């Protein structure tokens, strides 16, 4: 393979990898991580007691720190927004143990 073909293939690989990553990351945006901040509702699949934070708020110790929820058609949340009670879907297997350290 000559040098120009190698460069072309390299650019193609780089572009595809970057694009695919961006596509999968953006696609996942309706599925967001919410933190269980109110343990009055201890069940992980109960939408009550969850709040959205963009950073990593988990610390060791506890059963439910965060879980992923598909917020469907709801508007993207900002930090501190509670998880809507309806129109959201719990993502099975997405529970992260620990506790939310705000």
């Amino acid at each position, binding site marked *: 393979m000559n040098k120009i073909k190698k*460069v072309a293939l*390299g650019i193609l690989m780089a572009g595809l990898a970057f694009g695919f*990553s*961006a596509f999968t*990351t953006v696609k996942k945006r309706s599925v967001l*991580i919410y933190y269980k901040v109110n343990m009055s509702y201890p069940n992980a699949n109960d939408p009550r007691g969850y709040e959205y934070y963009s*950073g990593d708020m988990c610390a060791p110790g506890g059963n439910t720190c965060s879980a992923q929820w598909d917020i469907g058609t709801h508007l993207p949340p900002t930090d501190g927004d509670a998880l809507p009670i309806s129109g959201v879907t719990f993502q099975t297997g997405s529970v*992260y143990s620990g506790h939310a350290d705000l």
Partner: protein
Amino acid sequence: MGTTSIKQIHFQLSTKNKEIIFDTVVYLFIVLFMYTAASKLLTIKSFASTLAKSPLIGSYSLLVAWAIPIIEIAISLVLIFPTIRKTGLWASLILMLAFTTYLMYMVFSGSELPCHCGGVISKMTWQQHIWFNLGFLALGIIGININKK
């Protein structure tokens, strides 16, 4: 007494095969770095927040969060051009070594592990992540050695 002959086995690779292996290693690194860089850049806030929890990075989290994907993209660009590929592969190897050392330190020092690793391998545990990195380190070493001969 009979003489003992020691047969040495040589794996002779043709120049073309060596070139194919070297190129494959290079392309794998390009794909890995571009994929992870995009993923980090698109979730930079979350990535920085995770890094902030690390005892080694702490207050430099935002700087490191931007520096890592930028370095990954820069190395990928170097790897694209055949004349400077070898330098790029050395840089990749050093970066992977740095990542692996950091992961090993975090796992074996008993530090509190941040919960979300982020990036391409976000589903992996920290231990699996170490094995993944060691695999790429091995690939990098193979690539450099093949190109040396």
